[in-house]
């Protein structure tokens, strides 16, 4: 018999994973509901904080143009990207660390499917998507009040909406790559318990318009988080594309967009490389 190598249908495998996770979530329905409510509560706290800030100021940073409505678009963008990352990759990255510690990675390596794919998509945390819904509400409100305000009303063009979606996906990919790199370090460290903390602290930087770092001793940070670990591009590029009119653009901004594309491709390649390198030095913990 002439056996063909088995090629799994990745899309079908992914759908199976998604369905399994949904079944699992629906088994503990109250827990699921409570998780949704608490993440929406967290969103409400944040929105409250920014509303209080905008009681006292008209914009974040002088002359940056990030007024209340535009800034809320920015926040919504952060929420979209974070909720996608938390739904699809966060539970898997944490499980990955655990697999390494317990030796369960052996079984993942044996499966006839790409290991990085298997590790990255095994679980989906559906409740995290409630933050995506919160993001939609915030964005909807911000867009509506931008379009209807008296001074300088703004309706985004179809182009900018399309680019917005594309660059949100780019942002998710960059975040995913970063997370894979971080969790792959557990192979060398044995375990990486502070993964979540580190993740939280590092994404903290990406939550505000990048202009605010561009002065004084913020400049090195600004450079580092733009060019070395491009987390400042993750939210800033899509948010800017949607929140500011697209036609009067400075060169600087188009360079940013180009940089975001390059950074996306590079970060995927690098994360793939780090992942393989890590697997190379994996020694089973069992037996």
């Amino acid at each position: 018999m002439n056996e063909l190598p088995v090629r799994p249908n990745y899309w079908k495998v992914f759908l199976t994973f998604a369905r399994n996770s949904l079944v699992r979530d629906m088994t503990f329905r109250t827990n699921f509901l409570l998780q949704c409510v608490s993440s929406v509560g967290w969103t409400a706290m944040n929105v409250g904080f920014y509303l209080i800030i905008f009681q006292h100021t008209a914009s974040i940073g002088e002359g940056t143009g990030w007024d209340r409505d535009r800034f809320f678009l920015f926040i919504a963008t952060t929420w979209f990207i974070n909720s996608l990352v938390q739904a699809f990759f966060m539970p898997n990255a944490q499980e990955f660390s655990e697999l390494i510690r317990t030796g369960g990675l052996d079984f993942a390596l044996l499966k006839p499917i790409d290991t990085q794919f298997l590790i990255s998509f095994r679980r989906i945390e559906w409740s995290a998507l409630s933050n995506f819904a919160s993001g939609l509400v915030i964005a909807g409100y911000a867009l509506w009040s931008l379009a209807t305000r008296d001074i300088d009303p703004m309706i985004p063009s179809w182009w900018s909406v399309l680019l917005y979606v594309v660059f949100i996906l780019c942002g998710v990919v960059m975040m995913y790559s970063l997370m894979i790199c971080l969790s792959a370090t557990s192979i060398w460290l044995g375990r990486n318990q502070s993964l979540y903390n580190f993740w939280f602290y590092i994404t903290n930087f990406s939550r505000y318009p990048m202009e605010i770092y561009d002065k004084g001793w913020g400049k090195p940070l600004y450079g580092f988080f733009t060019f070395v670990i491009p987390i400042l591009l993750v939210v800033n590029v899509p948010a800017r594309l949607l929140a500011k009119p697209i036609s009067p653009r400075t060169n600087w901004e188009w360079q940013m967009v180009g940089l975001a594309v390059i950074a996306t491709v590079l970060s995927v390649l690098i994360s793939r490389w780090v992942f393989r390198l890590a697997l190379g030095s994996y020694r089973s913990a069992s037996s």
Partner: protein
Amino acid sequence: MSSTLSTIDEPVPHHSGIAWKLSLWWMILRTALEERFVYRGDFVLGTLMRFLPIITQVFLWSAVFDAIGQVEGEKAAEIGGYQFPDMVAYYLLTMIARAFSSMPSLASGISQQVRDGEIKRYMIQPIDFIGFLLLTRVAHKLAYYTIAILPFALVFYLCREYFVDGWPPLNVFFSFCASLVMGFLIGFFFEALIGMIGFWFLEVSSLLFVMMLFSFFLSGHMFPLTMLPDGVEGLVNFLPFKYLAYFPAAVFLGKVPEEELPMELAVEAAWLVFFVVACRVAYARGVRRYSGFGG
């Protein structure tokens, strides 16, 4: 074997009294300290990383103050009575206050012990459950500060310019220390009280999360409470959350008028007494309700 058996004949002296209690406490304290010193490296790193969010906060506020006008000088802009350097100093001080008053996994730990019956241990041993937990926390905090004082000192030294008024007068400083200690105790008894609810409802994690959200927002961890709209601020001032972060920082920065300080501290002490009593009552009632099986 026979030699050990003979010692049983003598009656075991009944341990009680101050000396015995002190030696017991010392034992608990020492164990907790040693527990902490095992992971020093991880610990210093973790402490330093905890300052990272402040950096973002500094930039955010500096952008906000830039937007509303003059940052320094005579006519410097104010938000809720805080100028830009005050704001940075405020965040640094709330870090200290939170380090005192936050009790990671205290409530969930208590409810878990109730759930899986481990709490039986304290009912048959001559150790007071709440007292034991409190001592363990004290020891953990002591151990924490023994090491964390270095990164804290470094960060405060680097940020010394933000403390425009320098050191507060001695009486204010003592009030600050008192508010920190009371903040620690309020944090402890508050969390313990929530944990005690586990005697009635076996799972408290969702309730705990809601409380955490409220305390995060209303304790002043995110921003000085004076920034709240007037009506809300008045209400929040009546709640005990502010002692967990806002109050000590405000005292240190001299934002609480000195003539009001004794009264404010008295109110804080009253809250403390309230939580101690509530926690004790809840425990006593809970134990009466509790039924342990097996083991």
